[in-house]
């Protein structure tokens, strides 16, 4: 007596079908309801993208000044380096030579960035 076992993926197919139909039914009902009863009433205020009651001012696309790259480099030097320095200091005595050299190169690279930012005047308070 052999009982045919349905393909295990059959359930998946059924579930996908249900997942597609389930949200479609209320959407179709809402669409039908609108067709039968509710006349659409779009308008300039309703179609506006801003929804806090204030009229939007200016452009949505704001450009940052490219001079901010100095802040970016200094952030990398002081913040990201500190994040790596802490575990480096903790594991210092157990590090193999290769890892020590790698972290040294990393610090040197960031130090170079610091020197460069310094020469550019990125560490001055005001100009």
């Amino acid at each position, binding site marked *: 007596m052999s009982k045919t076992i349905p393909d295990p993926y059959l359930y998946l197919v059924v579930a996908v079908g249900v997942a597609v139909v389930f949200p479609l039914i209320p959407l179709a009902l809402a669409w039908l309801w609108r067709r039968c*009863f*509710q*006349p659409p*009433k779009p*308008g*300039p*205020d*309703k179609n*506006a993208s801003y*929804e*806090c*009651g*204030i*009229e939007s001012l200016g452009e949505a696309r704001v450009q940052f000044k490219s001079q901010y790259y100095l802040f970016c480099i200094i952030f990398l030097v002081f913040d990201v380096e500190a994040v790596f320095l802490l575990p480096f200091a903790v594991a210092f005595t157990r590090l193999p030579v290769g890892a020590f050299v790698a972290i040294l190169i990393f610090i040197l690279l960031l130090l170079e960035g610091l020197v460069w930012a310094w020469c550019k005047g990125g560490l001055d308070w005001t100009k």
Partner: protein
Amino acid sequence: MITSLIDEELKKDLREQGVVVTTLQEVYNWGRRNSLWPLQFGLACCAIEMIAAAASRYDLARFGGEVFRPSPRQADLMIVAGTVTKKMAPQVVRLYNQMPDPKYVIAMGACAISGGPFKQGYNVLKGIDRYVPVDIYIPGCPPRPEALLQGFIELQHKIDHQKLSGPGKASFLNADTPSEYPVPAFGAHDLEPPANPDVFHPPKIERE
């Protein structure tokens, strides 16, 4: 069918026998009145009472109105809770315009109704009904949460009696009823215009 084709007496008799007969209109209104989503929007001290009404002691959730929406796109009901200054009035009207139909307005407190104690002031709008149609007025300064609850229930009754079709159908279902009203401009001395004549119908005072 949509509206009541079935006799009311027959419906009542059937219900007594355990057979529920209903109309699409009834189900629609039942759903709408029990899930009124107010706009999360407070202007002055009335807003404190509104918050109290929404919190656990008075619990607006019992009537389905606890889902305060931070966006007008998702709200059905605007509770104008507090003093509407002339600076704020254009924003209130614009928020009303951005709400989808059907939408309702509760003017909560003396200020929202008429300007209240600040009516003589230079900077207070003398009633939000000058610019948007108000469904329910709740007097008080400020009204207690119970008063807001009663106003809310009154609005539910109003929704319950709105018709889907036929001669007396709800006005928001008419294609020519506007959904947006002109936003007043904040002028040098007053809002321009000072009232929307299509909306504002003050009672005529008969003097001898």
